[in-house]
């Protein structure tokens, strides 16, 4: 694709990089905070928000950046690392070079491989100055002595050396190429999406070895049991995305013509809400442009609401929906008067797979940007797989024009496992 996406470097070069990495241990005393200029720290703070460093590197209720958050993958659970400047458990002894190398090449200070849960396949595209600013910011955080939580991975993923093979196969970073003829804002957005923003880490499909399918950038992927919908011409949104709507969504986790950010997108929005406005605008312009063809195709059809047909087709689902969902989602509900989007505007019922409808029922939605904002309770504890499936089938029938989803009950069981709602 031509919209400023990455141009891969030859695999051999990447392999050479990976091998080179094994040789140079670079553990040095932490630099004193005075080393960094205020401007550099501030720039780093902004970039850290665009990269959502805090979202992944902070455990629930833990100190910011001290790590420990579980990340689920097909190979088990990885616990994120402490990236405060603590000398023994954090980044304290990373030199600037070692830090840049870690982000660019996925190599620890001692040469060990970093798991690709850390999206170095994106950070590789960031420029030096940006990575240096991130370094300045992180090295001036409050150090926290928090040893790593051991990962829970299945073989062979539990052997770090396996990562070298993975890298040789899939890790071929190039350099960011701006798209000629596009505005500076568009290219800024493209840069951020491809590099620090690492949108593809969720929104690009992954192969069975959990590597991004770089041939299908931003065509929709699965992360932590959620489906991250396509951000290009395949966007299933029922109302066209415009730069303004994307901006509102990224900034508040919510757009009244779409839906609320849920799952891993919640923490992304929490950070983007506080990121510099021009950068979020740039992201919005770029993403809305990618989704333009989908929007152009949609523009005409009115969002669906086939209440009567759906009730006839899915009577059990209809009754459950009326008692469990309608208090918020049906006409006349307070939420509907208050600008929360009706379900026919939401993207999940339009998606090819039921993943998001299922996850949102199981896990609910937490307000993205703080205590205030769209909220939905989790039903995992109270509704059975069959009941969730019945509601999902009804929602699909009522709020979309698309064919029914198949095998819903087993999809719910799978969703529970992936979403950690066992």
């Amino acid at each position, binding site marked *: 694709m031509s919209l400023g996406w990455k141009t891969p470097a030859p695999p051999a070069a990447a392999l050479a990089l990976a091998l080179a990495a094994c040789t140079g241990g670079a553990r040095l005393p932490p630099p004193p905070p005075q080393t960094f200029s205020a401007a550099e720290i501030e720039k780093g703070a902004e970039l850290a928000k665009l990269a959502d460093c805090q979202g992944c590197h902070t455990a629930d209720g833990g100190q910011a950046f001290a790590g420990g958050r579980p990340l689920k993958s097909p190979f088990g659970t990885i616990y994120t690392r402490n990236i405060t400047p603590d000398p023994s458990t954090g980044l304290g002894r990373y030199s600037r070079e070692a830090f840049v190398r870690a982000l660019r090449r996925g190599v620890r200070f001692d040469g060990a491989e970093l798991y690709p849960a850390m999206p170095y396949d994106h950070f590789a595209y960031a420029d030096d100055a940006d990575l240096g600013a991130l370094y300045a910011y992180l090295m001036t955080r409050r150090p926290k002595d928090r040893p790593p939580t051991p990962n829970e991975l299945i073989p062979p993923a539990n052997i770090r050396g396996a990562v070298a093979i993975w890298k040789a196969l899939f890790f071929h970073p190039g350099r960011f190429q701006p798209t000629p003829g596009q505005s500076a804002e568009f290219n800024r957005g493209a840069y951020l999406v491809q590099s620090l923003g690492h949108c593809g880490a969720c929104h690009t499909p992954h192969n069975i070895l959990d590597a991004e399918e770089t041939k299908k950038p931003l065509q929709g992927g699965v992360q932590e049991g959620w489906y991250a919908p396509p951000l290009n011409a395949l966007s299933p949104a029922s109302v066209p995305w415009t730069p303004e709507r994307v901006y509102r969504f990224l900034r508040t986790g919510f757009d009244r013509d779409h839906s609320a950010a849920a799952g891993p997108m919640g923490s992304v929005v929490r950070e983007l809400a506080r990121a510099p406005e021009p950068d979020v605008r740039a992201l919005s312009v770029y993403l809305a442009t990618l989704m333009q063809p989908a929007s152009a195709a949609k523009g005409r059809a009115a969002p669906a609401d086939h209440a009567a047909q759906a009730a006839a087709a899915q009577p059990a689902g209809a009754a459950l929906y009326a008692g469990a969902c309608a208090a918020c989602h049906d006409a006349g509900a307070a939420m509907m008067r208050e600008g929360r989007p009706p379900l026919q505007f939401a993207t999940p019922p339009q998606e090819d797979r039921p993943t998001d409808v299922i996850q949102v029922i199981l896990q609910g939605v937490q307000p993205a940007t703080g205590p205030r904002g769209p*909220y939905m309770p989790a039903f995992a504890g109270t509704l059975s797989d069959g009941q969730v499936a019945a509601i999902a089938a009804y929602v699909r029938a009522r709020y979309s024009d698309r064919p029914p989803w198949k095998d819903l009950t087993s999809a719910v069981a799978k969703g529970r496992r992936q979403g950690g709602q066992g």
Partner: protein
Amino acid sequence: MSVGAPSRRDALAGGALVVAFSMTGHARAQEARGPQKTVPPALPGSLKTTPWLDAWIRVDVTGQITVFTGKAELGQGIKTALIQIAAEELDVPPQSLRLITADTGQTPNEGFTAGSHSMQDSGTAILNAAANVRMILGQAAARRLGVAADLLATTGEGRFKAPDGRLAGYGELAAGLSLHVEAQPNAPLRSRQGGKLMGQDYPRVDIPAKVTGGQAYVQDLRLPGMLHARVVRGPSFGTELTGPDFAAAQAMPGVVAVARNGRFAAVIAEREWTAVQALQRLQQAAWRRTAPPLPEGRPEAGLSGASQDQVIFDKPGGAGGAKTVKARYSRPWLMHAAVGPSCAVALLRNGQMTVWTHSQGVYPLRGALAQLLRMPPDKVRCIHVEGSGCYGHNGADDVAADAALAALAVPGRPVRMQWMREQEHGWEPLGCVQVGEAEASLDASGRIAHFRYEVWSHSHNGRPMTAGGLVAGAEVDPPFPPQVPRPIPMPEGGGDRNAIPIYAVPAGRVVSHFVRDAPLRASALRSLGAHLNIFAIECFMDELAKAAGADPVAFRLAHLDDPRARDVVSRCAEAFGWAARRPSDGRRGAGFAFARYKNLASYCAVALEVEVEHETGAVKVGRVTAAVDAGEAVNPNGLQNQIEGGIVQALSWAGLEAVGFDAAHRTSFDWSAYPIARFKDVPRSVAVQVIDRPGLPFLGAGEASQGPASAALANAVADACGARIRDLPLSPERVKGAIGV
């Protein structure tokens, strides 16, 4: 024990006891008491307005004692405290007492249960009434047993005992007496001689039912044949639905009636769920604003309107100190936000309207309802039944009116009306936005030389005295004129409550600006204007201490003369370990604040520690220590509970609350749009030191900690990271904005 007072004995002997029983307002000047009447010393507490003993205490022939109070249980534990007081003075087991609370058919009119007045008013009245009753019974026992009254002793289970062992029970004694007599102001108090019940942590009488699913609330009332209703309204105060489809609602199976009067409408159904569904059907209608648009922008935009200005403190001189400090503080609109939406049950039967309500003022509500229903007041009875905590004037009165109007449509059948969550959030009166501006100069020794403070506020008093004070009053046809908001005069004050510094200032001036026209619906929220004024003055004291280079606690003590105030400040600082606290490190810090509520009620100091997360501006409260002097502490644990709850609530106000609105309506419609503190947000611990003052008047403490807790939070944040935030709430965004990267 002496139980006699000569004037009383004479009065009894003279038989001048039969006076028409009246529980309503009592005009002392009209009493026909004959020549022996002299100017009586003022009776204490609510005995001033209701002096009759049998209005407070009745003893039947079996000895069963019933105590009456015009105050209501709001979760503040008043029932328990009043039972303790009565049992103490009557010297009977507390479990043996029956207590009847606010009911226009049975109890004295004690106005509103508000302003931390319950103990002062009703507690004092019952204390003295019970002492009077014991005195009268003692005199009767003396006559019966033929012994001098002061030789009799009470036994602790409702009897008098003569020195020779003969007994006389309260019941048999009462059978021959009328308690329909006026209280004497000086009946001797048992509690003053070292009682055993007052001052004890007697367990709350209402808690067992509340933790086991007993019937405890008006929400739990189930009367035979009861119907369920929901009121039909726009999203928030100042809006209406346009053309709801009443025919469709009426046609729903199970809908009994749609009660309508002008713009008022309620659906009434056999089943509650049907009523809820019918309401949702009706709410599909569009809505429009009926009042002028709301001011957008900063929450205090509405305060720029015309104001009534009053100088409430003026002490000339002292200008021109060495250093001048000036600061402006504000708080946004706040919600009561009860967990249980307001509810009432109403029944019209044989021309009599009975309303079970959790209103804070059953008598004023009766007056307003009588007007609204166009019925004589004696045909309306309001009975208090507990609801969810209210924290001031919330939707309780409005929903009572809604229930009564609905009940008119189905005579003979009780109607239970409960608001939906969005109705509570959208229609309840709010605690208003306020701005306080302080300026002071310090002399060369670092003492305050001059102190100026000005406060801008809307009304804190929208309680319904007429039908126009009820939401439904403006909806019925013809509508009732809205109540004109009025300021509450000093010394209690409304917006200017606690605006006069309690500290010794040689000169100064305090001006109260009352801005009558409020854009949103305003009324009493726990502590009224004292919240912002204490917040402002106590933050300002820290700012002054900083300018003077003084420790905040030492600076306060240097300006406090009242020994009780000094005591509370010192005790709190000591319990917290203020002197030995760790110095702030850019992230952790401690804050202190103090106030005497209304400058005439309880003293309360709060010290707390915080940790500010630099990356997000999130503030975590760790340890909180408070000290309180509420006069004689009837139930120290209950007092602690009130102070603790006040602190946690005030930290929620100060840390995250603000009512949102756009031009057309309130946008804070549920808990996701108006979040309050949850378990992860509340402090690590709260410890309350009670300074008991046995024998000193009850001061009431329900609202004493709101201001100090909020100010201590801001002071701690300033201490922790140097960011002085003067506008509430101290939201993470605001803190983050103030501390930078």
